[in-house]
């Protein structure tokens, strides 16, 4: 489904990703871990099409299609969803309206009919229950004044609404209390399916207790330096990144 080959990315002439390779098949969950500043969010932004990144080498194919030549909204309509590390506030833009516009834009892009108001409402209520998001947050402006945890729930709600093929969740677990972590993980697990892949960016092994990954990758200094299964995450928790960094440098 997703194939990243030798991806090199710089920001303002500073190389951030330096030859990243990653293959993801349908239905798989890949955890990406790595020290601060190693390029995890950069990877997620580049996949979603954010501007300001210079692709200096490599390619990314999504279902065989050259992803890097597409606009962010085109990628979204193809089924790429990015749950952001820092969800953005949109003052005055009603959360429900935003979700409806978003869903209908994606549906139009997929050649599906728009949902009418009734069907949409039914779906929102159902999905909001999944992430235990307070109804009142649906009536407020998008993320404006939401707590950190509420913003993350709202991201997962949007993911549930959009039913993406590839979801990239950038530190969705950061700043969540224990209960919220359980709820959100439950939400993500409910969305797992044989044709939906997930990239899970996280710093905490704990998340992987809730969402069992098929693969764990360690990103250091712009490259995936080690891949394994859940054992790798446990090892990292015990030993930190130092040993991998040394091995990679060697």
């Amino acid at each position, binding site marked *: 489904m997703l194939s990243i080959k030798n991806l090199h990315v710089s920001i303002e002439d500073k190389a951030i990703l330096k030859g990243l390779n990653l293959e993801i098949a349908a239905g798989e969950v890949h955890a990406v871990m790595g020290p601060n500043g190693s390029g995890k969010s950069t990877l997620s932004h580049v996949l*979603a099409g954010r501007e300001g990144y210079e692709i200096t080498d490599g390619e990314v194919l999504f279902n065989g299609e050259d992803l890097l030549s597409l606009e962010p909204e085109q990628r*979204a309509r193809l089924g790429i*969803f990015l749950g*952001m590390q820092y969800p953005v506030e949109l003052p005055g*833009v009603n959360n429900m309206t*935003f979700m409806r516009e*978003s869903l209908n834009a994606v549906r139009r892009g997929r050649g599906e009919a728009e949902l009418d108001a009734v069907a949409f409402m039914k779906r929102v209520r159902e999905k909001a229950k999944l992430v235990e998001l307070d109804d009142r947050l649906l009536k407020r402006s998008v993320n404006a004044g939401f707590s950190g945890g509420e913003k993350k729930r709202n991201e997962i709600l949007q993911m549930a609404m*959009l039913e993406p093929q590839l979801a990239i969740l950038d530190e969705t677990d950061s700043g969540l209390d224990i209960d919220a972590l359980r709820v959100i993980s439950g939400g993500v697990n409910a969305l797992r399916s044989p044709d939906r892949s997930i990239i899970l960016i996280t710093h905490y092994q704990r998340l992987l207790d809730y969402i069992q990954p098929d693969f764990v990758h360690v990103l250091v200094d712009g490259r995936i330096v080690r891949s394994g299964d859940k054992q790798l995450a446990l090892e990292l928790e015990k030993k930190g990144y130092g040993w991998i960094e040394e091995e990679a440098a060697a």
Partner: protein
Amino acid sequence: MSSQQQTVDELIRSDYEHGFVTAIESDTVPPGLNESVIRTISAKKNEPEWMLTLRLQAYQHWLTMEHPDWAHVQHPPIDFQAVSYYSAPKRKEDGPQSLDEVDPQLLDAYNKLGIPLEEQKALAGVAVDAVFDSVSVATTFRKNLADVGVIFCSMSEAVQEYPELVQKYLGTVVPYKDNFFACLNAAVFTDGTFVYIPEGVRCPMELSTYFRINEANTGQFERTLIIAEAGSHVSYLEGCTAPMRDENQLHAAVVELIVMDDAKIKYSTVQNWYPGDAEGRGGIYNFVTKRGDCRGARSHISWTQVETGSAITWKYPSCILRGDDSVGEFYSVAVTRGMQQADTGTKMIHLGRNTRSTIVSKGISAGRGQNTYRGLVRMTPRAENARNHSQCDSLLIGDRCGAHTFPYIEVRNPTAKVEHEATTSKIGDDQLFYCRQRGLSEEDAVSMIVNGFCKEVFNELPMEFAVEAQKLLNLTLEGAVG
């Protein structure tokens, strides 16, 4: 090029949708301003002697006045001798009695603007007094209004039919000596709207006027007078569009509102005059004096404006809060893009006790647009316990535009309270990216963010108008994306 920059450039290039010219023969007075032109206007309109006297008085005074230069706008000097001061569409006999008699080309023009009269009639009971160039050519719903005693007609007609009302109130809120443009208007105004709501009457429908400039080089000098007697209530909608022109067109309107005890006037404007091209050529110079006088106790004036057009907007709808417990409100959205300049705001003059005023101003600048909020809140010594709350927010799209805020506050009563809040924000790359990541086009993202920003003001507009205003805003900020 960053996405931000791209949006801005696309916004700048978007064409003015209402820029078309209707080929209607006009009965136009040659350019120039002198006593004889004023006498001609007055004679053409068959005005009584007192009206002519008022005009000439204003003209004499205007000759002694200087063009004001304090506003934060720049334009070449206006040649008042190059302006034609009267133009009326040619009419069969004495003008149309019904829509069927209206020049089909004229109706077609309205159709192109998306405001067909036929549809208007059906729409939520809106009565339309359409001003095409300077003379009213179609007025509907007059009978329904007459049944409850509401007078809704053109100013020319009012001068003929209700001279005592016009004489009693005209110029009492905006005297001809008030300012340069108001004085010019008093001398040469050609038409406008007159509304009179008798005591205790709630006007059964929204009153609406569409203005439109059509003649090249024709100044538009509208004069509007609305009187709400004690306990009455009226909502008035004013909307305008103008066809594309190369030369700058001058527009200097005067609006006067008079509100008695317990009465309320809600005055809503959507202004969409031709803004000029991307280099700043053409476009309307819009110098407007709008003022309401809350004469009665507990009287209430609410101004709501959505200003998206004109090369230059110079406009400060104001309230004189004379009656005790009277209320003044000003809700404004002003958009500037390309080379547009807007210097707009309000004055709240608190004279009475317990008077209250609210100001909500939302300025949006894109391209090289310059947007200025200028507001005065004056609490006079008599204004015991008067209150004002002002909120002025600016939104910048791109980094070549400007937002400026000049709040003037004068408090001469220790019990009066004035609160002023101001913010400036920018549509961020992060906001645009967030929306696009969720499948929205860049254009839709911008419009969604901007509409969110303006929500408080749109909420004040009557429903149909709010929808229209939102559409207009989207259109104004629409780019060539996709």
